[in-house]
């Protein structure tokens, strides 16, 4: 680890360049390998029978008819699980989480949400497995349902878990300063209630698992559409009593994840390997879309009662939010989402006194765990809406209110005074918040906006402009690692534990390694998502891959470069510090003729006979390095948009959307922009189209893509992006994360733009997502009032 924090790139030729992706040719030609593409001899197919009830006792399950159905190999119910019949692992405990409930792989005696697995059928085909699901007889006794968040939190609500006195499983408070005193002396205080509804990450590839058990070698291979193959491997080894070495988990090409695919464990991740071991045949289970919309974790549902105190100039004196967090029926992932919500809320602003307090509440709905943003959109929605209220009440320009409260560029590192999701102090490392803000205002044409808006209104068009800011905690630990190898062919291989679900790791990491080793990124093959290739790591989440794994790759590549120079030095008869690496060669500086290819060096460094120089430290051109960040690093940005509202129908058109974004040094701007585009689409989807509807008995009503409305190309605006680069001082590459940036302020900026469009009617949006019916209702009510 001697190179830690002393990394100096040999050249910056590829770092920062717009390089098309290494992973694309296979994906473009249909040669990708997604879990559903895995085909093994004698493979059987599984289907899951799920509860149609949100809350019911299981009186009896009779699987005999199903077992006898044509093509059926096995039907599992809870009683068949043996030692795997215990609740699934508890992830990420927290001292405030007093009831850390997790579900069973198959429900034993009670179901707590629609979609909870009750039986697992394995047959010769998926068709036959679904036929047999129809034959499983389950006698349910329906129980009273805790459907709506606020009602579920109230005393006397139907209880999701019998051994609890209420549905509240955690109560957590964080404070900065003295909020009571700040509010007591503040000249202005404004209180609001904000409601954020449910959404789904809905990757285009649903979840899926294939498992194969070799009974002779006693090895288990699992292909899993997961964001965290290594923890899955570790967990499976433990549950099945196998050595970690004997379990290999591969997340091949993963068709989008966005958070919910980082859950460990979903029931099927245990059931498929179990069935494969019991039957001695490979088993495949692919989640269908209807299952996905009930059985894959969801997010977003929170209700905030928030209050802000300001002085007469609009400077923030204190902020308070007390909120409810809907956990769904179980809480495997702990309190990450509400902690992130409450720690993202302060954003780029000075908030001398802050009180955040939440209760996590069980309801009879699908479980909640982080979905891209993971609480950040909530915090930003609350904070930005409060500032909009301040501007309106004090008659100030909304941009000016923000400007008066920004943390200034010379105030870093800035300690917010809270504990972040990584259990480390929430300390912003670097940034230029006012600079970013000014760029965004310019991009959207904020100065001329009032005139443009007036002109539009005169012609009967209701246009609005919004601008919202955020700070995004990214790049948290604990660690990631990488192994960089130069092969005798001269190709460079990078292995890391952080898998990709489309974020371009095969290219970004290749760029980092290429610079250190003086090769083209096309000569670098990155292997991720396979525990057989690299077995240490946690996973892809929290916008951390580029920061944590990226720096590990840089350190390992640097070590290999040093080794290459050492080996080359002895062969080219020059001191190591006079050896340069470029174009796939090592050569003596100023004497390009005295050179060797990297491939030849790699062969030399792995001798068959004779002795090896001591300073080589080992064979080959290979190094493994780990990066362990001391804390997260904080990106920031500003989104601005222009919308039009049809006030007769409530239809919303997003005409323009601009993002100014700072995530430190940029590895590949093309990939970064792609991340932001996609995030914005998910953010806008969640702001106007996507809502997981449940009825008052917690029946999910939007379990198809006809009703869960992912936006299409026709709804999305063109998106304009500008980058600013304030390097992070916390890692050698100076990078910060960016994966969630696009989604975070979208709901807030749309709400503000709608307020602005409808300002003559005095409408103030306090909920998200919006929809035409809702906007029309607000418009109608406002007109009736006036």
């Amino acid at each position, binding site marked *: 680890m001697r190179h830690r924090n002393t990394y100096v790139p040999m050249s910056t030729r590829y770092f920062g360049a717009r390089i098309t992706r290494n992973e694309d040719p296979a*994906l473009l030609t249909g040669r990708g390998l997604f879990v*559903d593409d895995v085909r093994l001899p004698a493979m059987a197919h599984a289907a899951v029978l799920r509860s149609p009830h949100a809350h019911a006792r299981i009186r009896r399950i009779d699987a005999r008819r199903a077992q006898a159905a044509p093509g059926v190999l096995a039907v599992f119910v809870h009683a068949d699980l043996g030692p795997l019949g215990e609740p699934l692992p508890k992830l990420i405990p927290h001292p405030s989480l007093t009831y850390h409930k997790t579900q069973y792989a198959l429900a034993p005696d009670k179901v707590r949400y629609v979609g909870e697995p009750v039986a697992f059928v394995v047959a010769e085909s998926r068709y036959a497995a679904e036929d047999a699901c129809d034959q499983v007889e389950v006698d349910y006794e329906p129980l009273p349902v805790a459907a709506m968040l606020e009602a579920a939190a109230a005393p006397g609500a139907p209880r999701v878990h019998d051994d609890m006195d209420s549905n509240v499983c955690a109560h957590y408070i964080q404070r900065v300063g003295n909020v009571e005193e700040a509010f007591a002396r503040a000249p202005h205080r404004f209180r609001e209630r904000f409601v954020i509804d449910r959404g789904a990450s809905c990757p285009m590839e649903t979840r899926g698992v294939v498992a194969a058990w070799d009974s002779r070698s006693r090895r288990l291979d699992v292909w899993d559409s997961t964001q965290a193959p290594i923890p899955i491997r570790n967990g499976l080894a433990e549950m099945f009593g196998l050595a970690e070495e004997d379990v290999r988990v591969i997340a091949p090409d993963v068709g989008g994840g966005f958070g919910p695919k980082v859950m460990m464990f979903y029931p099927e991740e245990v059931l498929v390997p179990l069935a494969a071991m019991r039957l001695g045949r490979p088993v495949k289970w692919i989640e269908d879309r209807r299952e996905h919309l009930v059985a894959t974790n969801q997010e977003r549902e929170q209700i905030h009662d928030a209050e802000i105190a300001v002085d007469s100039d609009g400077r923030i004196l204190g902020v308070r939010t007390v909120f409810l967090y809907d956990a769904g029926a179980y809480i495997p992932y702990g309190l990450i989402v509400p902690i992130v919500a409450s720690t993202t809320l302060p954003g780029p602003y000075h908030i001398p006194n802050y009180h955040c307090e939440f209760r996590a509440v069980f309801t009879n709905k699908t479980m909640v765990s982080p979905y891209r943003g993971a609480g950040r959109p909530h915090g930003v929605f609350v904070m930005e809406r409060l500032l909009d209220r301040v501007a309106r009440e004090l008659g100030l320009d909304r941009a000016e209110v923000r400007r008066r409260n920004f943390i200034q560029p010379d105030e870093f590192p800035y300690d917010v005074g809270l504990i972040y999701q990584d259990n480390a102090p929430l300390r912003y490392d670097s940034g230029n918040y006012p600079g970013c803000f000014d760029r965004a205002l310019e991009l959207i044409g904020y100065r001329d906006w009032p005139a443009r808006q007036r002109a539009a209104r005169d012609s009967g068009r209701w246009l609005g402009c919004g601008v919202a800011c955020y700070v995004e905690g990214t790049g948290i630990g604990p660690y990631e690692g990488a192994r960089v190898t130069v092969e005798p062919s001269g190709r460079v291989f990078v292995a890391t534990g952080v898998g990709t679900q489309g974020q371009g790791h095969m290219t970004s990491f290749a760029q980092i390694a290429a610079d250190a080793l003086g090769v083209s990124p096309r000569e670098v093959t990155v292997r991720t998502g396979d525990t057989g290739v690299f077995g240490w790591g946690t996973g892809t989440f929290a916008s951390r891959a580029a920061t944590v794994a990226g720096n590990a790759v840089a350190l390992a590549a640097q070590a290999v470069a040093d080794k290459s120079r050492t080996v080359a030095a002895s062969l080219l008869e020059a001191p190591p510090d006079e050896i340069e690496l470029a174009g796939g060669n090592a050569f003596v500086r100023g004497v390009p003729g005295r050179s060797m290819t990297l491939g030849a060096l790699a062969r030399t460094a792995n001798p068959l006979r004779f002795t090896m120089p001591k300073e080589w430290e080992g064979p080959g051109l290979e190094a493994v390095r780990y990066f362990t960040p001391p804390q997260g690093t904080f990106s920031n940005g500003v989104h601005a948009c222009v919308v039009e509202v049809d006030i007769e129908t409530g239809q919303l058109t997003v005409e323009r959307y601009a993002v100014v974004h700072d995530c430190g040094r940029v590895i590949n701007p093309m990939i970064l922009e792609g991340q932001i585009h*996609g995030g914005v689409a998910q953010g806008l989807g969640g702001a106007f189209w996507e809502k997981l509807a449940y009825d008052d008995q917690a029946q999910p009503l939007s379990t198809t893509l006809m009703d869960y409305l992912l936006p299409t190309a026709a709804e999305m605006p063109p998106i304009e992006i500008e980058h600013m680069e304030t390097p992070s001082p916390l890692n050698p590459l100076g990078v910060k994360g960016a994966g969630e940036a696009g989604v975070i302020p979208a709901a807030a900026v749309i709400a503000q733009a709608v307020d602005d469009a409808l300002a003559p009617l005095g409408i103030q949006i306090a909920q998200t997502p919006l929809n035409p019916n809702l906007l029309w209702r607000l418009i109608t009510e406002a007109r009736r009032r006036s």
Partner: protein
Amino acid sequence: MAAHEISLRINGKPYAGRVEARKTLADFIREDCGLTGTHLGCEHGVCGACTILLNGEAIRSCLLFAVQAEGAELMTVEGLADGDRLHPIQQAFWDHHALQCGFCTPGFLMTTLAFLRDAPRPTEREIREALAGNLCRCTGYKNIVEAVTAVAETLASAAHAGASPPLAGPADVAGSAAAVHARAALPGAQTRPGGKGSRSERAPSHSPKRRRS
């Protein structure tokens, strides 16, 4: 239930199999023919990941039973590239970073192939509406729209250089010389036996071109 013998052609190669009537064409292509580039994202006709060409027209392969495709000519994403040479649409998607996870990509490529054949000079609005039957969760569509715009421009300038009349509009594409040229410029898109445009006004007594069956 009885099994049905079927044979059809995919990307110019013959395939045959015995299937239950209920097996969807998408499952047949993926499982029986081993062509797993065609993906299933919803199985109810919304997401478009399973889009392929059936006798030259873009369709959802999850909404057709394999038995219905008896004798048909199919084209899937595996048929786009010419050996190692990417199709211009694939190349444009690569150049413009129009894919991230890549799961929806085959469907977008096949939709684009048929779309640009029919509407060689689309506006951005037309592109966005033509792609609205394919969902992508990663890209926000911006780079996909840019890629399609870029291919359209390349093809239009190629067509303009070669053909004297400008490209015809979508309504009467099948019969026009320019459209034929545009199809020639767009490898792979020429397979549209009995193009719809030529059949659109036809009396029942006129014997329609038989679908191979």
